[in-house]
């Protein structure tokens, strides 16, 4: 078993996906992360021996070791506000195990209790991010990147959407297939699509955050946190404007969605969440010829996961 610590999160996830493809075939989704974590780690000197869920409001998940022996546990919240979040959290913690832990062995527990220098813990709560240091933040982003690649392998995702029109039904198919939240699914699509597209997550009339595809970014589309959601947009008009019409993207005229270098007709598809008081919009711009894009992994920044992880 090759060592995974310190490797690229996408590479480690892709290696696992290839292994799963071989063992289970293509119709193997969604990924059973708990089982995979225990199975994959069982030959390590410090395996993951327990994956325990509980109703832990306000908590995400944690990777921690046994106090008295070289074993790891994943604890996670089963009472999640967002569907699909639980699976993402599990994959995130499994990512910490593969990428970031300092491997433990029996010698670390010589006195029947772990030596102080071997102690470590990865705990992920949504509320204290402003207290994190930089290295913690990088680890969190890496764990998210790992989770996104593990749960939504790009080759499979492409097969699901290539040549298809982006509709609410198609997005539903994706979230069902991978067992992730709508946000995570769209986020992933934005990261690999060759189309000029962007996503905007908004609340109370302003963008919480957003992300443009590479092709869109290169042509001047940039979503700034805090930007005003245009009144004429679907997101600005409210659920009736979308659901009353169609489950497809709606063509908007020039001058609704404006970006510094972009003022063109946009198609918009917006999904509203009453529960969260938020909306997620997909903006589709006209395709302009661009140079071929590399498919290199894009890392997840911290924005995404704690807002809507899943």
């Amino acid at each position, binding site marked *: 078993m090759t060592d995974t610590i310190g490797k690229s999160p996408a590479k480690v996830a892709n290696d696992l996906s290839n292994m799963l493809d071989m063992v289970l075939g293509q119709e193997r989704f969604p990924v059973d992360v708990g089982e995979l974590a225990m199975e994959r780690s069982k030959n390590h000197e410090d395996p993951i021996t327990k994956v325990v869920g509980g109703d832990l409001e306000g*908590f995400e998940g944690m990777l921690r070791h046994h106090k008295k022996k070289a074993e790891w546990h994943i604890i996670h919240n089963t009472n999640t506000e967002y569907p699909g979040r639980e699976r993402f959290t599990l994959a995130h913690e499994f990512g910490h195990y593969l990428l970031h832990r300092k491997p433990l062995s029996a010698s670390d527990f010589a006195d029947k209790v772990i030596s102080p220098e071997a102690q470590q813990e990865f705990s992920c709560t949504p509320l204290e991010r402003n207290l994190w240091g930089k290295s913690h933040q990088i680890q969190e982003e890496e764990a998210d990147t790992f989770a996104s690649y593990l749960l939504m392998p790009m080759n499979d995702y492409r097969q699901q959407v290539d040549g298809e029109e982006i509709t609410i039904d198609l997005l539903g198919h994706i979230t069902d297939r991978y067992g992730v939240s709508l946000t995570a699914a769209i986020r992933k699509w934005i990261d690999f699509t060759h189309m000029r597209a962007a996503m905007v997550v908004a609340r109370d009339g302003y963008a919480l955050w957003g992300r443009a595809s590479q092709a869109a970014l290169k042509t001047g589309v940039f979503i700034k946190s805090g930007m005003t959601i245009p009144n004429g947009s679907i997101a600005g008009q409210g659920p009736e404007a979308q659901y009353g019409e169609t489950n497809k993207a709606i063509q908007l005229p020039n001058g609704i969605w404006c970006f510094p270098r972009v003022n063109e007709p946009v198609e918009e598809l917006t999904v509203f969440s009453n529960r969260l008081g938020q909306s997620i919009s997909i903006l589709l711009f006209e395709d302009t010829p661009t140079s071929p894009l590399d498919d290199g992994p894009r890392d997840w920044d911290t924005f995404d996961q704690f807002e809507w992880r899943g």
Partner: protein
Amino acid sequence: MPTPLGERIREQRLKKGLTLEQLAGAIGSGKSYMWELENKDSARPSAEKLQAIAQALDTTMEYLLASENVSEIDASDQEFFRKYRGMPDKTKQKLKRMLELLDEDEDE
């Protein structure tokens, strides 16, 4: 990524059935400023602003800023609770129990 303060303000505002505009109006601020307060880590309201917001929401500044007090005796408990101070008390207790159970389990 809203701060706990921002979340509390938003929670109270929705409870009162106020829109962002209405609350902003009540405290003499702009809508976008109010939005930043609710949704951005970086927003640092003055004491006067906070007082005005608390008043408009029929609550107190103390409530909006409340961080839970921990008065545990055990030092390891203290550390545990410090680490998870953002979580509801109920969750902290539960999580702590779960971890203890996991550590006791030595029969395998």
